[in-house]
């Protein structure tokens, strides 16, 4: 017999997990979905952000999420720099499809190796007052370790949505994904717009890394666990749709959580990717894709 208490707890846990997944996937939605850049190194930047949070937490005792926020300008600059190299080396020459992919694989490995050499390969965790604590509201247990990343993930989604829909640069990013020539005719430089958007994508990745290390320990190779997941969420949500990314994240989070609670956790990933296949069969452009 199904316990509704368990189901309710699983749904809430799934939503919390979904909020975190959204944070990790937003950057991919932006770079892959809108800019058409297959940034396979995105999860490596997530881990880089996680190590930045670890470094500040272990040396200065700084809260990991606060560190994540403080480091976003730096990661924005790194992202902008990486895009400029990518543009000059591949995109400008029209060689971005395969060679660009290899480039980002290279970036991924360089980040992994650099982290291994700098911090070693031990598991790294952070300490924060909210880790290991939970509250219970009406029989629903909520772990702060998941609640805080979920709230930050939702705020990141909202901020990115407002940026893309309400600001000049945001609209220009949306425009660059549709028609670069038209954008140029409007007096905007597509390369500059893409540089800004890519920088924002990497800044979002770094902040989500701070959320990740709050939830689970990381090693330099943790990024590989997330490559499939973040691209699956971006595709399921509909490429370039920020709202779609959030919805897809929550669908996958709730599916994983319900399966783990009610039928056994070994089915959770299979069901999540089954949902992805089913959704793409019905809506090939993703849930909110155009």
């Amino acid at each position, binding site marked *: 017999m199904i*316990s509704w208490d*368990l189901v309710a*707890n*699983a749904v809430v*846990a*799934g939503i*919390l*997990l979904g909020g*975190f997944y959204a944070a990790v996937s937003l950057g991919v939605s932006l770079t892959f979905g809108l800019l058409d850049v297959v940034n396979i190194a995105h999860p490596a930047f997530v881990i880089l952000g996680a190590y930045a949070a670890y470094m500040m937490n272990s040396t200065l005792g700084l809260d990991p999420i606060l560190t994540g926020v403080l480091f976003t300008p730096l990661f924005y600059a790194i992202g902008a720099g990486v895009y400029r190299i990518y543009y000059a080396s591949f995109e400008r020459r029209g060689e971005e499809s395969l060679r660009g992919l290899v480039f980002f694989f290279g970036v991924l490995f360089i980040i*992994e*190796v650099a982290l*291994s050499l*700098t*911090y*070693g*390969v*031990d*598991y*790294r*965790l*952070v*300490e924060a007052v909210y*880790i*290991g*604590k*939970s509250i219970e509201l009406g029989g629903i*247990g909520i*772990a702060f*370790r*998941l609640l805080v990343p979920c709230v930050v993930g939702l705020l990141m989604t909202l901020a990115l949505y407002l940026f893309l829909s309400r600001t000049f640069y945001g609209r220009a990013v949306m425009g660059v994904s549709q028609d670069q020539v038209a954008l140029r005719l409007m007096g905007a430089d597509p390369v500059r717009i893409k540089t800004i958007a890519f920088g924002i994508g990497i800044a979002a990745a770094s902040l989500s890394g701070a959320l990740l290390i709050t*939830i*689970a*320990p990381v*090693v*330099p*190779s*943790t990024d590989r*666990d997330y490559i499939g*997941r973040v691209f699956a969420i971006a595709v399921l949500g509909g490429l370039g749709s920020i709202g779609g990314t959030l919805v897809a994240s929550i669908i996958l*989070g709730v599916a*994983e*959580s*319900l399966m*783990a*609670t*009610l039928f*056994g*956790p*070994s089915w*959770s*990933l299979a069901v999540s990717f089954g949902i992805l296949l089913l959704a793409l069969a019905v809506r090939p452009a993703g849930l909110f894709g155009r």
Partner: protein
Amino acid sequence: MMRLRTSTLPGWALVGAVAGTLVLAGAGVLVARAADPIRIGLGMALTGGLSANGKPALMAIRIWKDDVNKKGGLLGRPVELISYDDQTNPATVPGIYTKLLDVDKVDFVVSGYGTNLIAPLMPIAMERKLTIMGILGLANNEKYKYPNYFQIQPSGPDPEANWATGFFEIAARQNPKPQTIALIGADAEYPRHAIAGARELVKKFGFTAVYDKSYPPSTVDYTPIARAIKAVNPDIVFVASYPPDSVGMVRAAAEVGLQPKIFGGGMVGLQFTTVMTSLGPMLNGIVNYDFWAPEATMMFPGIKEFFAEYQKRAKEGGVDPLGYYLPPYAYSAVQILGLAIEGSKSLDQQKVADYIRSNEFSTIVGKVRFGANGEWAKSRVLQVQYQGIKGTDVEQFRVPGKKVVLYPEEFKSGNVIYPYSAAQK
């Protein structure tokens, strides 16, 4: 005669010269051979998921090499190590060992770290009749029964079952005896073996399994699992997990208030210093397997000197700063190989294997004797309980009393605090 003599003398001189040259050349060869290093090769996880253990293991093996070379090497020859990064990828193992054997011409090979990385080495070792020292793999030789395989992990003759025997014995000794158990493990090589062994022990000790599930290793949130286990209210929770999952399960148990009477069993990762210092008091009460603890009962000859050197190198190497889990066993694996080479006075694979099979070795992890399947003749998987941990200071883990050895009896250093919740107060 004169002609004969004149013609013969230069002939003798020539023969003498040639013979002398050959003798000198032969001596030269002998001298060169004596100076040639004995090469030991291995692949090790220096990157990828198991690198947190692979790097300290390689560091320990290098310490052994330096120790041996300081004492004049083996059979009067220096020891040279050749290692490659297997990237925690079993697919790289056949290539690495083929290169070690055919290109680098190593004299002996040692396995990489972990069950998954030892498995692909087994067919190569068997085909080439190698003596193979395994570094912490669970039940790798159970299917093959290869006689020249030796595993340094102290699992014992029945590795799957022996792995958790202590945990179940401790649980069964409690009064009133716990009745129900939940089994949870990752969908991966080691946890599958550990859970398979635990299922046998559930039957043997007369417990009732009320939850028996596995989860994908990439799981992020463990609270739904902890909550599902809490819903069936088991007396015992046995977990077989890798480090990220172990951390996830311990935190999730604390967050959802999962409070069985005994919790733990086969969690990899709780032995690592960074994990211990991060989880801190959340560890209190957990009963888990381990291989070494800084208790008086575990102070074997040479272990203090080893840790002094390891901890010095670990600071620079960015690896586990205490190194209590894997490094002494990695050291002991090559220590046994070295003792067998010296003892058999040979580099012949079979002679060395025969020597290892028929002798007991004094190592830094104590006396080691191997059984018929290459596992330790007698299991020495410890069950420890974390007790009295306050805060996250690393220094507390250097002293006795924090990881109390409960099992086996001969190494016992304290008593179990039962139930789990009592140790958390």
